[in-house]
């Protein structure tokens, strides 16, 4: 059995040190699509919403209420904007790989098909970049909201037990990035391999249920990434006293 999807994104053109891969092109495409939709939406937005505006407002409002129920208070707008951006970008990047022809149109190099485009999130570089942005933004936001003393107090302490817990927290910060990036990459990449394998068995009608499954997986993984970013930001930006108060109330 021949599996056609390669692990790394295939390079298309090289400009000196800068290599343009097919997943990079796909990310550009997704960005263009999102910016285009937003631009068109802003031009047409009116007080009396049409069907399209209603739909977008529904998504944004649902997500805002979700964020408010987790974070609450004045932290909501900042956390909401970042996690919703993650959700929309990852959703479009995941689903872009399912467009017919996207993975199969390309050119031959050394008797192997190199597609021009490939789902952005099926490249580990993209998901790792997303996870790093999420983690760094979380820490910057945490520093801004609770201050440097409280921020460092989470990791370093004179109390030996708290020092050990802080050490575990430091390790968990690293594993957070790894698990975020690998979860997204693994799901989308495995989905592509499954689709490619199924299509070699029988190319008509048979892959349809798997395509449906991949649509659901793409949505859920985008939601999981956004929810985790939301939860990490909410946890790291909550001061210790507030957490204690919440526990007492519960």
């Amino acid at each position: 059995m021949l599996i056609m999807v390669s692990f790394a994104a295939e390079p298309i053109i090289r400009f000196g040190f800068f290599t343009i891969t097919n997943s990079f092109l796909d990310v550009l495409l997704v960005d263009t699509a999102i910016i285009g939709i937003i631009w068109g939406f802003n031009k047409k937005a009116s007080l009396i919403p049409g069907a399209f505006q209603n739909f977008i407002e529904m998504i944004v409002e649902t997500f805002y209420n979700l964020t408010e129920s987790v974070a609450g208070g004045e932290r909501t707008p900042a956390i909401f904007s970042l996690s919703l951006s993650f959700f929309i970008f990852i959703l479009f990047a995941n689903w872009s790989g399912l467009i017919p022809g996207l993975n199969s149109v390309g050119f031959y190099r050394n008797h192997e098909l190199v597609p021009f485009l490939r789902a952005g999130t099926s490249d580990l570089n993209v998901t790792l970049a997303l996870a790093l942005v999420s983690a760094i933004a979380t820490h910057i936001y945490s520093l801004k909201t609770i201050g440097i003393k409280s921020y460092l107090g989470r990791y370093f302490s004179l109390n030996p037990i708290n020092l050990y817990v802080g050490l575990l927290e430091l390790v968990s910060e690293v594993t957070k990035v790894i698990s975020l990036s690998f979860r997204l990459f693994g799901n989308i990449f495995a989905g592509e391999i499954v689709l490619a394998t199924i299509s070699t068995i029988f190319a008509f009608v048979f892959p349809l249920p798997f395509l449906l499954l991949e649509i659901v997986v793409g949505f859920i993984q985008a939601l999981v990434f956004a929810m985790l970013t939301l939860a990490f930001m909410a946890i790291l930006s909550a001061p210790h006293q507030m957490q204690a108060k919440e526990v007492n109330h519960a």
Partner: protein
Amino acid sequence: MTFSISGGLIIAIGGQMAALAIGLIGAKAMEAIGRNPEAFGRILPAMLVGMAFAEAIAIYSLIFAFLK
């Protein structure tokens, strides 16, 4: 012809616990829906997110199975 079972072993061992976890999540969700059918809309997204987390472990081993 080279013969290798490592890829099959990786996904077989790595998939067991994830499959069990997904089964447990599904079973508990069904139980909850059976007791309280109106809560279906609120149980389903939580179940799917929980399944996505459990599935992640199997996905890691799937990557390694393809990579080996």
